[in-house]
């Protein structure tokens, strides 16, 4: 019933479009889309214009580094790349632990350009990849929405997604990360899925599988697709909307998508071994069963087929479910991984996975960040949802499910706002286009006003705000009077305009600072650039030994590897908790204990971030409590979080602070000979306190370099003969053997010591290694 109404409606609309020539509407569409692309691209360039064309904060540096590696050494070497510069002494198999889609994409672009003799540096390609893909995302969203509702809605949605902060937050120029291209892949996959489920043609479903393959290669979020599409199918089954089209499209998509997704080394056998993927296969089996039942029924159309069908369906579902549960218990299928589990049991991560909990973007979402990222869309997309459900059909079921699941996930994790944004744009676009269609019904040009608004938005977004209220259109008959129409128009014009200026503001103020170059503004508006990070990394890359090993907290691992080109102990892919805990323990324990750990890990330099001189709040002392927690998780004997707080449980660094705090390595390295910065001398601007323990000397380390604003401090770990320990001869005897032999045994000893014997680092590992070697020889 609704579907027929839908067709009537769409025909009615088509009449509106088709009395212009095809070329005209196409022209409008192309213009709007290209303008959307342009606006999306332009609104993401704030960082490049303010600073320079540079890769942003942390993960992008790794992506950039591996992309450069791939461009230099070729794809297969990249897949086999064992990066001994990371996670010393463990190393990291990069090819097997990344989603290569990003690197392949930019590498392909680079290759094409260079075959055309256009020598663009790979860095620039990486910087501008995300903004370019935002345009593609807009087009994909347009296609998706016009599949769902109408082309007008599609144009709206395209313009929304082009500039909405929720998406540009992850795709400004320079933030070279998976999400930038993944959202395009997501939208395009969904578009193709709807195509295939509409047409039921194998061609489209194969296209869906291919696009899904691209998504898998690009982002871990592909799990969202492989759970949402089966959910869609399942709900359709429940609604009794089974059809041959559904059968064909899903089965083809599932099989091919499965096979393709298993080609990604990082994914490997997960699609058949982990619970995250089981929904898909379960639905596949269920679909098969239902299809079989249908077929049986088609053999004898008479008889109790309805009950049979329902019963059979239920039985099939039950069996599938039981089978999955059973397999999980037997351990054939891995249970939910912590990151996914923390989506359902929201308190899970806080207790069990401090590393996940420590990341700020894994926190739940307040309404204000919803509003910040979506603005007017946040209170208009329910309208679109409303009408989608009111006039339901197969693909609108899909968009409803998409919206509901995405909005739930976004509520749980700020980061997943990214998956919510596209569907919100789609639905809001639908809502706006419904309303404006109706309001502008009298004059038969329907898309034209839509187009003007869009392009106006685009101009707004591009920067200059033209206040051009559209001329009210003369109403032919008195449906609702012309005043109402024009009033409505103007009001919504203003809303859209507010939206666009909000987007520009949000993108420029919140999302486009490359966090490795800080800018401070004097009260005369003059800008001062604090370039300390690159200063320090530049120093590392030039003035330390080629194989020097730098110990720092994991946030800076990728940057040290990317800009400093030196070996790091831990970095931003936090795959080895115990190793990180070891570094945390070194930072948290006192100097001599830390020295033992550092010698065990062959650390040459220690790098700490200290914002006290310029009031930079994201420095290591503020992160320190997480280091303590993570260290305590692995070494509960040595590290007690309580010791780092004052009696009254406050976290402070001044004279009130606890002894342990004042004597731990992190504290000493941060405040060593720190006397500049504000008055009184040695005043910590970030904590707003005078450090409690000052004028101390370092025994085991010496200051190697400190950047101009004290932001980055690098210390050199002294060799044992450089400081006179009480038992110098012993050290002289043991350490050299460990030093020149530690390379090899470190590869098999390092992890063992850090994993198995948790707290037993006190005994000198050098001796152990020494013995081992003598045995070996």
């Amino acid at each position: 019933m609704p579907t027929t109404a839908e067709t009537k409606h769409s025909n009615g609309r088509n009449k509106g479009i088709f009395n212009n020539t095809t070329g005209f509407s196409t022209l409008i569409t192309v213009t709007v889309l290209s303008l959307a692309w342009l606006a999306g691209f332009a609104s993401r360039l704030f960082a490049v214009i303010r600073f320079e064309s540079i890769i942003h904060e942390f993960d992008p540096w790794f992506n950039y580094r591996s992309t450069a590696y791939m461009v230099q050494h070729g794809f297969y070497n990249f897949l086999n790349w064992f990066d001994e510069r990371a996670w010393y002494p463990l190393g990291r198999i990069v090819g097997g632990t990344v989603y290569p889609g990003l690197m392949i994409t930019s590498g392909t672009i680079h290759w094409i350009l260079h075959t055309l003799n256009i020598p663009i540096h790979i860095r620039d390609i990486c910087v501008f990849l995300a903004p370019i893909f935002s345009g593609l995302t807009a087009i994909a969203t347009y296609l998706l929405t016009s599949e769902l509702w109408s082309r007008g809605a599609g144009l709206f949605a395209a313009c929304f997604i082009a500039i909405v902060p929720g998406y540009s937050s992850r795709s400004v120029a320079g933030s070279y990360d998976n999400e930038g291209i993944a959202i395009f892949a997501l939208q395009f996959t969904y578009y193709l899925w709807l195509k295939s489920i509409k047409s039921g043609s194998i061609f489209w479903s194969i296209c869906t599988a291919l696009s899904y393959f691209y998504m898998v290669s690009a982002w871990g979020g592909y799990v969202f697709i492989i759970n949402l599409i089966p959910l869609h199918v399942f709900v359709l089954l429940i609604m009794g909307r089974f059809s041959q089209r559904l059968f064909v499209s899903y089965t083809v998509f599932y099989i091919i998508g499965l096979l393709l997704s298993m080609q990604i080394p990082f994914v490997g056998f997960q699609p058949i071994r982990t619970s995250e993927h089981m929904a898909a296969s379960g639905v596949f089996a269920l679909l098969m069963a239902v299809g079989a039942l249908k077929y049986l029924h088609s053999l004898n159309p008479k008889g109790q087929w309805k009950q049979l069908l329902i019963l059979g369906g239920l039985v099939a579902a039950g069996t599938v479910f039981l089978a999955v549960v059973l397999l999980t218990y037997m351990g054939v299928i891995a249970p939910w991984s912590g990151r996914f589990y923390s989506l359902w049991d929201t308190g899970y991560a806080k207790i069990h996975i401090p590393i996940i909990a420590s990341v700020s973007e894994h926190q739940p979402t307040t309404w204000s960040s919803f509003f910040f990222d979506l603005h007017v869309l946040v209170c208009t997309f329910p309208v679109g949802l409303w009408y989608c459900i009111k006039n339901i059909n197969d693909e609108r079921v899909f968009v409803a499910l998409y919206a509901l699941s995405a909005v739930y996930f976004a509520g749980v994790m700020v980061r997943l706002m990214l998956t919510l944004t596209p569907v919100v744009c789609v639905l809001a676009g639908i809502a706006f286009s419904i309303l404006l269609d109706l309001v502008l019904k009298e004059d038969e040009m329907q898309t034209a006003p839509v187009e003007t608004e869009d392009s106006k938005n685009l101009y707004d977004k591009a920067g200059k705000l033209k206040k051009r209220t559209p001329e009210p259109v003369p109403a032919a008959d008195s449906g609702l009077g012309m005043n109402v129409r024009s009033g409505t128009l103007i009001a919504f014009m203003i809303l859209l305009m507010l939206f666009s200026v909000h987007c520009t503001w949000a993108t420029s103020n919140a999302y486009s600072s490359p966090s490795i170059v800080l800018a401070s503004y004097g009260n005369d508006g003059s800008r001062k650039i604090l370039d300390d990070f690159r200063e320090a990394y530049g120093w590392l890359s030039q003035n330390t030994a080629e194989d020097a090993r730098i110990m720092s907290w994991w946030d800076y691992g990728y940057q040290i590897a990317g800009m400093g080109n030196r070996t790091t102990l831990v970095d931003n892919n936090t795959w080895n908790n115990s190793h990180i805990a070891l570094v945390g323990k070194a930072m948290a324990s006192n100097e001599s204990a830390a020295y033992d750990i550092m010698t065990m890990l062959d650390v040459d330099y220690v790098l700490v971030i200290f914002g006290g001189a310029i009031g930079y709040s994201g420095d290591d002392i503020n992160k320190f409590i997480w280091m303590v927690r993570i260290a305590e998780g692995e070494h509960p004997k040595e590290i007690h979080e309580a010791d780092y707080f004052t009696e009254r449980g406050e976290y402070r660094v001044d004279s009130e602070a606890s002894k342990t705090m004042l004597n731990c390595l992190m504290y000493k390295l941060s405040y060593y000979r720190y006397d500049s910065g504000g008055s009184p001398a040695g005043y910590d601007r970030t904590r707003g306190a005078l450090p409690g323990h000052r004028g101390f000397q370092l025994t085991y380390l010496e200051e190697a370099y400190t950047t101009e604003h004290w932001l980055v401090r690098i210390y050199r770990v002294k060799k044992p003969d450089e400081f006179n320990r009480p038992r110098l001869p012993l050290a002289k005897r043991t350490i050299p053997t460990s030093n020149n032999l530690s390379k090899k045994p470190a590869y098999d000893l390092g992890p063992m010591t850090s994993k198995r014997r948790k707290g037993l680092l006190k005994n000198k590992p050098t001796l152990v290694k020494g013995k081992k070697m003598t045995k070996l020889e």
Partner: protein
Amino acid sequence: MMPAMAKIQVLVLLLLYIAIQCGSLNVDTISSDIKIKNVDRSIDISSQLVKITSKVTLENTGKVPVKNFLLSVEGGAKSNLAFISAKDQNNKDLRLVETTVKGYDQVKFWRVELKEAINVASTAIIGTESVYTKALQPFPTAITQQEDQLVKYNGNLYFYSPYPVVSQKTNVVLNTKSVESFTKIKPFSQQDGTIAYGSYSNISPFTEKELNIHYKNNSPFLTVTRLARLIEVSHWGNIAIEETVEIEHTGAKLKGPFSRYDYQQDHHSGPASVRSYKTFLPASASDVYYRDTNGNISTSNMKVKKDSVELDLRPRYPLFGGWRSHYTLGYNVPSYEYLYHSGNEYLLKMRAVDHVFDDMQVDELVTKIILPEGSTNIVVNFPFTVTRLSDSLHYTYLDTKGRPVITFTKQNVVENHIQDFQIRYTFPRLLMLQEPLLVVGFLYTLFLCVIIYVRLDFSIHKPEHQHKD
């Protein structure tokens, strides 16, 4: 006409080469009838270089006019010698030809071809200048952050010459009073910043007497370990120059920690360190950029003067002894100042090496010149002897068959080498139309495709047709 000119060029070049060849081959003898009446020598060791300028009064005591004479450099110092030249009274450059003398294999000789011969019993005054790099040894070799940098110079107290010297004076310029020790051979005198030796009389040929000076020298000891200079010529009125500089502080190494605190407290801290230095670019240089592999180096500023553009370059971090840094400096200059042409014949006149900082010393210089695509019969001539590397091709925007690249390299370069090289080549001007045509053609096809796409585009209506289920 033009080919003829080209031929002449080739000929000249050929002759020049031949001359140099036999020059290096040929063997001279020390003529006994030349005698040096007076030498007035000044050794400037106030910077990291050793610059010796001496005024030599030659006397011809023989029977025949002398057309040339020999300059010589001690065997110990010849490896450090970067540059040597000679001028006559009216300040004309004289041609020097390397040569050897039997029995003096260690010594390095140059034959100076005089413009007009010295007649019998008459004299001529010749000014010679020579520059030595790495002749000053820091001693002690490692100092802490606060200490001053002390260096040792040891050279020859006497003017080293194959001829007897009647009388000579030597002025050593230090620009500092704090001298640890220096050779004391009477007569000598020490005024502020200079030590004057002499005059000594009747020194026989090839006498060496050690001259040692150990003194404070905080002037920047910066060495450009490698300077890659890339010159890209475009006939659209622009020449792009990019210099990749690897620089190292070759003074006394930094011993012990670096303390930012001390470094901030007083600016006399780290006296031997280099905070920044000045680079002079040609006055017409525009859109200058200064970056390294991690992006822009934001600590630098630029002053445009009327005869040059002065860049005040600050490395990301101050350079202490033994610390390295590297950067890329690029700018554009209008081509009309350096590129001359008549018809299809073009002449490019540019500096083989340009100013990096005062008293610079460059270990290795590599200069590449990228000529426009399609330029043929290229003739190069260099101001000084260089080793020319094999030519190559370079592909960039809208190139089809690649641009010819001329590459040459030279070791041990100092400021005196800032001289022009010349490249002559032929470039049919019609080729300039090639690139615009390419662009036009591309755009044309692009629009054609778009037109066709728009005409054939039904994909947008399809969904609405098959919207029913």
